[in-house]
């Protein structure tokens, strides 16, 4: 389509009987001041909403992080408790007083004589 033919087509849309279509100009629609203002306000509100959703989402991640940190701390405490329990099981006192130790017979050491 050429430029002139598109103009002709636009003109033809508004053609009606007894109208001077030569001097007819295509009507261009523009936004008035009130519409522009309202549109700007709406856009600003939308941006604000977008900002709020992003911030809320980020803060929600913050809560998740906090929960994970608490879980990590709890698991670490459990690990510490297990380490303590393991160390106590290997303590010399426990080994000395165990049933196995009590059933052992002490052997006179070779190489030394002691009064």
């Amino acid at each position, binding site marked *: 389509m050429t430029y002139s033919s598109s103009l002709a087509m636009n003109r033809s849309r508004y053609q009606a009987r007894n109208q001077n279509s030569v001097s007819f100009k295509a009507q261009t629609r523009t936004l008035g001041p009130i519409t522009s203002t309202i549109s700007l306000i709406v856009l600003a509100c939308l941006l604000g909403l977008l900002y709020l959703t*992003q*911030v809320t989402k*980020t*803060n929600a*991640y*913050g*809560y998740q*992080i*906090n929960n994970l940190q608490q879980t990590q701390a*709890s698991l670490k*405490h*459990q690990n*510490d*408790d297990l*380490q*303590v329990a393991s*160390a*106590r099981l*290997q*303590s*010399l*006192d426990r080994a000395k007083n165990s049933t196995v130790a009590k059933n052992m017979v002490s052997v006179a*050491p*070779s*190489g*030394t*004589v*002691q*009064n």
Partner: protein
Amino acid sequence: MAPSSNKNITTKAVQRIRIVYGVVIVIVAIFGIRLFYVQVISYNHYRAAALSDQLKQYQIPATRGIIEAHDNGSVLPIVLNQTLYTLYADPVYIKDAQKVADSIVPIIGGNASDYANQMKTKNTRYVILSHKLTQDQANKIAALKFPGLGTQAQDYRTYPQGSLAAQVLGFVDQGGQGQYGLEQALNNDLQGKPGQVKAVTDANGIPLAATKGNVETAPKDGDNIVTTIELPMQAQMEQILQSDYKKTKSQGLSAVIMDPNTGQIKAMANYPSYDPSNYQNVTDPKVFSNAAVTNAIEPGSTMKVLTTAAALDQGVIKPDTSFYDPAHWLVDGFNITDIEQDGGARQQNIASILNLSLNTGATWMLMQMGGGDINTKARNAWYDYMTNHFRLGQVTGVEQGYESAAIVPSPKDNGAGIDLTYANTAFGQAVQVTALQMAGAVSSIVNGGTYYQPHLVDQVIRPDGSTTKIQPKVLKSNVVSPKVSQEMLPLMENVVQQHLTAGFTYLNFSSDYMVGGKTGTAQIAQPGGGYYSDKFNGTYVGFVGTDKPQYVIVVYNMQPGVAGYAGSYGGQPVFADLAHMLIDNSYVTKKAQ
């Protein structure tokens, strides 16, 4: 209606509308100005007010490093961290104290009526019901959901081996600071560095991640320490000290077992001791100290080992030198004699100075350092050996709190009988030495002449997993020459043999092993000057090995109550028990066949 009246009505309406508009504009302007004032002019004030409420700063505690020790090739933790809980109640919110008490007894034990009485305490909002609950117990109590009942987490140091090596380890006080022992000496390395969170928080105190300017610094956990202590050796040493404390009727026993070829301390203990997990119940704070490093005493005749080595190293005597011992020396108007007059004036030799523990012999060796007399040259030479060679009078730098430097008298003529003072130092009086200083000095004599720094840390393990192995640190080379070191070994072995022959049958060791030593019976100074005539400390220094000394043992027995010389009857039997322990448990490797 006439056109002029319509026009009047319209004009009036327009005027009213304009007035309304004007009022609206004024109101909006007021709001606008106020908003401008609040949000622009007073921005800083309101921001500060909001932040003071919302901005929270927390410290994130660092995990304190743990301490481990060796156990026959493996490594076991001996100090750990554990989070335990304190159970508390707010009496204002406790409606039925007996019901609450009955509910918690199955979980934590104890007496229900005691708990109920505590929860009925008037005029307080906080009563502690129990300490050191486990996480499992805390969770069960939380599940009861009693208003006014709560638990508070607290970190504790835990000692799975009980009171083993208590004084070497020390403890951590309520403020998180290490006290005594390793905990104090290595506090900065063990405690790490806390982190911090500085952030705008919600009503529950949880940081809001979207806030600009949040600061979060991760904590730097403390280093873990692996000590040089051998746990079974330490346990057996403590058992021996406890037993010999009673047998010798002692007022305090200290012992050190050190590897003379590296400076590693394999066992170090004192009796009496304490339980570090209940340090707050100790009534006598003296028991917190590791006396082996804090308690400096006059060591008595064990000093003759150092005097002999110094004289040999200076070349003023030889191992087979003999001399005429007049049985007394007059120094600064005072007679120096022996504790026991062994046969009076006669020829003696170096071996008998040690074997018979001749004070006159030690004084004679000091004289040889001065060309035949105790003079400035002798004093300076002996002072040089005591301080620069054997490193007495200064801390060893061992990783322990409150280590004593002890005292070595200055050789300068003070016009108050300095020659007499120095004659006394030759046989271990008028000079103070800790058990560890003596161990370091004797080690440097028997190992070929190198002074290795006594140390307790074998490895440092950082939070990132990297490990640093601590290498032996030489503080002084050529303490004595290797030749002198070799000459000292049979002299000390001879002391043990002679004492065995004299009837101390517990000194009977197999010829597969080399065992040498020296007793010390030290007088105790009185506060106003002079010495007690009836109070003595018993000391012993010795070594055990096969082809070469593998362990140096030092024993300090404070005022043993048994009859006989404190060194022979207080220090020597403890040494023998420790030496037998090392041999019987194969800590000493046998000579190759």
